[in-house]
């Protein structure tokens, strides 16, 4: 974990509403493990003061890249960032995804920026399997060709049917699951909460492992403020776990979902 003054190297439209921001961060870049994130201080956010967390899409000795969609004050304030602009980063943060279990078959499930968050893991995994990606339209499903190039069998689903199966990720996942030896599956999931919960429910029902990367609002990003907590099951009840420090990745059995 480092705090680093980075510089924008590249910033442009990526696909649909998504944009790519590539940052020179030679201290942080080499430390990144798949599933980790950075905490970005966005310049020009006016009177809003907190950092915003972003999953690391790519990392190298040079720095890190993120994919984001402008949806609110912070992400909209990022749009005018030009190459050369200085930005302050803290990272890499969070636990990231664990190693694939012995004898397990990896499966990827993602939606939205989750595709970006899974990319490093997809690259690193020793086996490649099926990748279920969901989105509203074809435009919302990121990096399909990149995942294919790594050897993944990408199965897109879209709400409007503009790419792959029509419906939610589960519309493609559930029929596929029927034909699998569920015990041997190990899922790496990143996407909106309902998607995480759907996959977690199936993991518990069918006895497979599912690593879910959670998106909770954050303040500090380093485990100090206790903003980003979820309920994690313990032997005799539950405890708070911090998404920023103890997560963002949790195994489905650990999580006690709020109603």
């Amino acid at each position, binding site marked *: 974990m480092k*705090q680093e003054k980075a510089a924008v190297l590249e910033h442009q439209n990526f696909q649909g509403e998504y944009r790519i921001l590539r940052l020179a961060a030679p201290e942080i870049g080499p430390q990144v493990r798949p599933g980790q994130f950075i905490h970005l*201080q966005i310049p020009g956010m006016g009177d809003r003061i907190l950092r915003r967390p972003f999953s690391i899409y790519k990392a190298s000795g040079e720095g890190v890249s993120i994919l984001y969609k402008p949806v609110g004050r912070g992400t909209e304030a990022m749009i005018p960032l030009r190459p050369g602009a200085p930005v302050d980063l803290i990272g890499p943060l969070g636990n990231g995804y664990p190693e694939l279990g012995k004898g397990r078959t990896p499966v990827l499930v993602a939606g939205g920026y989750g595709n970006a968050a899974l990319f490093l893991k997809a690259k690193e995994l020793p086996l490649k399997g099926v990748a279920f990606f969901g989105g509203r339209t074809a435009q919302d499903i990121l990096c399909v060709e990149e995942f294919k190039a790594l050897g993944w069998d990408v199965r897109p689903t879209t709400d409007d049917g503009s790419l792959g199966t029509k419906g939610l990720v589960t519309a493609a996942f559930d029929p596929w699951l029927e034909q699998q030896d569920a015990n041997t599956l190990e899922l790496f999931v990143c996407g909106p909460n309902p998607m995480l919960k759907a996959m977690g429910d199936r993991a518990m029902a069918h006895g497979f492992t599912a690593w879910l990367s959670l998106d909770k609002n954050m*303040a500090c990003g*380093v485990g*100090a*403020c206790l*903003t980003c*907590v979820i309920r994690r099951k313990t032997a005799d009840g539950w405890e*708070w776990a911090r998404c920023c*420090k103890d997560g963002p990745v949790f195994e489905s059995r650990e999580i006690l979902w709020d109603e």
Partner: protein
Amino acid sequence: MNKPRMEIKIGSMMMKNPVTVASGTFGYGPEYAELVDLNRLGAITVKGICPDEHVGNPTPRTFETRGGMLNAIGLPGPGAKGFLKKYIPFLKQFDTPVIVNIWGKAMEDYGRVVELLDDEPAVSAYEINLSCPNVKEGGSAFGTTLDMFSRTVELVRGKTQKPIIPKLAPNVPNIGSFAKAAEECGSDAVSIMNTMPAMAIDIETLKPQLANRFGGLSGPAIKPIAIKLVFDAFRACRIPIIGMGGIFEPEDAIEFMVAGATAVAVGTANFVDPGTLVRVIDGIETYLARKGHAAATEIVGMVKA
């Protein structure tokens, strides 16, 4: 030119410089240790501890506002024993005093938590949180009624020889009376200010933005309120004041000192820029040197008003 002396004293506790962290914004020490050199700090103030484990509030617990943030964390924590076990070994590695922020659901809890902690030499002082707006059990009543305030401080005073530092509530018309009461009850200092009771509502869902409904406002927005409270308290008591509320830059910390604070605490700014603490420490030193002061204590309360 000689370097200005940065040391200050809170009761028997020596701080190598006037800068500590605001309780609850820096965890228990380890959280920021990779980003901030804990040996540089004047003191480490840890998150609020009560006698027993406490679960805190449901989420959402924080919300960003214009120029600040709301929090209603609700003081989750490992309790006194859990704290000693989990964090004291870590904290002992540093040459920096530890101020433990304590609170209770009932008045006797304030005594109990001190009893549980007091034998530990690595606990250097107690900051008594009498003003947390985020727990239903009454934390805030301790801080806004003079009688309960005094009784609680006296109770703690009776349990320890270590410095005690009541943390004052900002939502009173007469902060000076509380500062004076703290002094009369044998406090070594007071901290000013805790967060300001506040609220935000989502107009689409009609639900409060915090699960706890209310929270405390912190950050740059409240600094002018805090400066006024410190100024008033300085004129009402003779014990040192630890000033806080929206310190983001060295200039903010110096403003608190000029208003009357002997020490200062950096809170919300840690979330925004963990480099703030060291920048503030260095900035105070540079200011003192530039202005020809031999010691940090020379600027305390020097406002011409």
